[in-house]
C-alpha cells in the first residue's frame, strides 16, 4: 500500500518538475532526428543506420534517466522530506520501490510521448518510421530506462546532494557507455589470451547498455556481426529461451540494483 502511495506521489513530483518537460522536449526533438536519419535509408533488419540509432539512444537515454532519477532520490534527503516520511511506519524498501515505480512511469511516459510525437510527425510528412521499427525502438528505450533506473537509485542513495549525484551519475554513464570498450581492451591486455573471451562475456552481462544492445541486434537478425566467437550465444538468444533469459537477466539486474540501493539507504539512515 505504501509503495502505491509513494509511487503516486513520485508521479506528481515528477511531472511538476520542469526538468521532466525539458527532457521531454529534448527527447522528442531527438527522436525526430532519428526519424529523419532512418527515413533516408531504411532497409529491413539490422543495418548500420539501425546501429547508429541504437547508439544515439544509448548516448542520451541512460544519462537522462540517471540524472532525473538520482536527483529525485537525493532531493528527498536534501529537502528533508525523507525525515518527515520516516516518522510514519515506512520502510526503506517500500519507499525506494515506490520511487522506482513512480519514476518508471514518469520516464516511460516521456519516452512514449516522444515516440508518439515523432511517429505522428513522420506520418504527416509521409515518410517516417515503420510500425515495426517504432515498436522496436520503443521497447529498446523502455528496457534501457528500466535498467538504468535501478543504477540511478543506487547513485541517489549513495549521494548526499545533487552535486554528488551528478558527478557519480555522469561518471557511471561515461564508464558504461563511452569508455567501456577502451577500458576493457586496455585491462584485458594484461590477462592471458584464453581469459579474454570469458571475461568479456561476464563483463557484457554486467553492463545493461551492452547486453540490451547485443540482444536487440540479435533479435533484428544481425547476430552474425558478432562473429564466430559468439555463435552459441547468438543461437541461444535467437531461440525462445533467449527472450525468457533476457527478461530474467533484466529482472535480476533491477532487483540487484534495488537491493543495493535499499542496503545503502538503510546504512545511511542508521549512520546519520
Amino acid at each position: 500500500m505504501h509503495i502505491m502511495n509513494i509511487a503516486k506521489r513520485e508521479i506528481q513530483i515528477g511531472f511538476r518538475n520542469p526538468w521532466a518537460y525539458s527532457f521531454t522536449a529534448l527527447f522528442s526533438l531527438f527522436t525526430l532526428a532519428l526519424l529523419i536519419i532512418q527515413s533516408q535509408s531504411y532497409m529491413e533488419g539490422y543495418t548500420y543506420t539501425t546501429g547508429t540509432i541504437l547508439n544515439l539512444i544509448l548516448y542520451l537515454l541512460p544519462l537522462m534517466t540517471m540524472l532525473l532519477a538520482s536527483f529525485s532520490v537525493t532531493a528527498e534527503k536534501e529537502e528533508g522530506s525523507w525525515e518527515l516520511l520516516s516518522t510514519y511506519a515506512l520502510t526503506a524498501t517500500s519507499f525506494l520501490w515506490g520511487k522506482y515505480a513512480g519514476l518508471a512511469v514518469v520516464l516511460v511516459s516521456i519516452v512514449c510521448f516522444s515516440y508518439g510525437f515523432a511517429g505522428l510527425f513522420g506520418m504527416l510528412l509521409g515518410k517516417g518510421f515503420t510500425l515495426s521499427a517504432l515498436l522496436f525502438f520503443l521497447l529498446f528505450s523502455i528496457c534501457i530506462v528500466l535498467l538504468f533506473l535501478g543504477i540511478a537509485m543506487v547513485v541517489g542513495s549513495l549521494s548526499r546532494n545533487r552535486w554528488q549525484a551528478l558527478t557519480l551519475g555522469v561518471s557511471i554513464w561515461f564508464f558504461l557507455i563511452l569508455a567501456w570498450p577502451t577500458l576493457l581492451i586496455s585491462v584485458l591486455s594484461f590477462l592471458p589470451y584464453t581469459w579474454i573471451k570469458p571475461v568479456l562475456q561476464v563483463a557484457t552481462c554486467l553492463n545493461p547498455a551492452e547486453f540490451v544492445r547485443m540482444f536487440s541486434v540479435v533479435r533484428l537478425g544481425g547476430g552474425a556481426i558478432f562473429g564466430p566467437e559468439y555463435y552459441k550465444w547468438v543461437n541461444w538468444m535467437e531461440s525462445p529461451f533467449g527472450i525468457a533469459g533476457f527478461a530474467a537477466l533484466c529482472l535480476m539486474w533491477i532487483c540487484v540494483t534495488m537491493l543495493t540501493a535499499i542496503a545503502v539507504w538503510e546504512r545511511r539512515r542508521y549512520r546519520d
Partner: protein
Amino acid sequence: MARMLLAAGIAGLTVGAVFFDRVSAASVSLQERIDQAQPGAVVTVPAGKYRGPIRITKPIVLQAEGAVEIASDGSSPVLSILSDHAVVRGMKIVDNRINPADASVVMRGNHNIVEDLVIETMGTGVQLRDASNNTLRGIRVIGLVTDPGKEQEGLHNHGQHAHQLSGAAGTNPDVTAKKGNGFDLNHSHHNRIVSNRISNMFDGIYAENSNFNHMEQNFVENSRYGYHFMGTSATKLLGNTGSANVTGTMLMESDGAVVQHNRFVKQRENPNAQGILLFDVTGSRIEGNRIEGNRVGLYMERSKGNRLEGNEFTLNFVGMQLKQASGNVVTANHFVSNVIQAQAQDSTANTLEGNYWDDMQGIDLDADGRSNIPYELNPFFLALTEAVPPYQIFFQAPGLVFLEGLFTAGTDASIRDGAPLLAPVMAQEDEQRAGQQTAMGVLSVLLMSGSCLIMYGGVRRK
C-alpha cells in the same frame, strides 16, 4: 561390446545376402528388358527394389512406375548412360560403396535427359565424362557419409545400417569414407543442370575443363564448395542457392562466367568460408547476387577484367576482399552491415565507384545522387579484431564508435570509393509501408494521448 558388434555384423550380412538374392533376380530381367528394347522405346519399371548395374546403351526412355529403388552391386556404378538421346526418370538410386572410383550414375553420352531421381550415395552422385548437351533436372543427391564428429550417432541409427550393408563403414575402421561430389563434370559442355538439390557432399557441382554449362535454381547445403569450377569457360550460374557450405561458389582459372541472382548465405562455420571465391578469373560478370552472413562475402585474387554490379553484401564479417586483383569494375553494389565492409591488398587499379556503403554519411553538392566525399574504410576495427577475435562483441558499440573516431588519422586503406551512392538502389517496399500507415497513426496517437493523460494526472492539483 566387440562380440556384440560382430554378432550384429554377421546378422546384417545374412539379411543382406537374402535381400540381394531376392532383388537380383528381378534386376537381371530389368537389364534384359532394356537390352531387348528397340531404340526409341519406353521401358517402364514397375515399383520394387532392383539391383544394379543398369546400363543404357541405346536411346530409350526408362521410366519408373511407382517407387523404384535400384541398389548398387558393390562393384560398379548403379546406372550408366552410354548412349545419346536417352531419358531416365523418377527412380531412387542407393549406392553404399566406400570410396568408389566412379559415381553412382555415370553419363558418357550426349543429349540425354535425367530427371526426378533421388540418389543416396557414399561417393559421387552423377558423373559426366565427355558428355555434352545433357539435361539434369530435379535430382536430389544426398550424401550418406557422416562427418567424423557425427559418426557415433550414425552407428545407433538402424536405418543407416541397412544402407551400409555392403560397405559397412562402421565395421571396418581402417577405411574412412570420403565424400564425393553431387555432380561431377569433366570435358563436358553445354549441359543444363536445373532445379537440383544437393546435401552433405564434397562439392555440390564440380566442373573441370567444361565449357558453356548452365546451372539454374539449384540448392546446395552442408557441403564443402557449393559450385566449384576449374578451368571452365562461359559458365552460367543463375538463381542458385548455397547455404552453410564452406564456400558458396568457387571459380578458378575460368573466364567469361556469368554469376547472376544467386544467394549465398551462412557460409561461416569454417575459418576459410566465403560466399564467392574468384581465383584467376577473367572477363566474368558477378551481378545481382545476395551474399549474406558469410565469413567473407566475396574474395577475389589475381583476377582481371571482371564486373561486380548490383550485388548485396549484408552481415558478412568481411563484405569484399580483393588481393592482387586489377582492372575490375565494382559498382552499384550494396554494402550493408558488414563488420568490415571491404578490404584490399595490392589491388589499386580497380574501378570502385557508385556503391552504397551503409556506414557512410556523404554530402551531395551537385545533386547527382552521389556523394562528393569519397568513402574510405577505417582499418581500426579490422586491426583490433584480427589481434583478438572476441573483441568483435564491440562491433558498433557506442564507445567503440567514439574510440574509432580518435583513430581515423592516417587511413591508408586501399578501399576507396570515389563517388559512393547516398541511398540504396534497390526499391523500398513503399506499398507495404503505406499499408502500415494507419496502424502507425493509431499507435502514435495512443502513445501520445496515454502519456499526456499520465502527465496531466500527475500535475493536476486535487
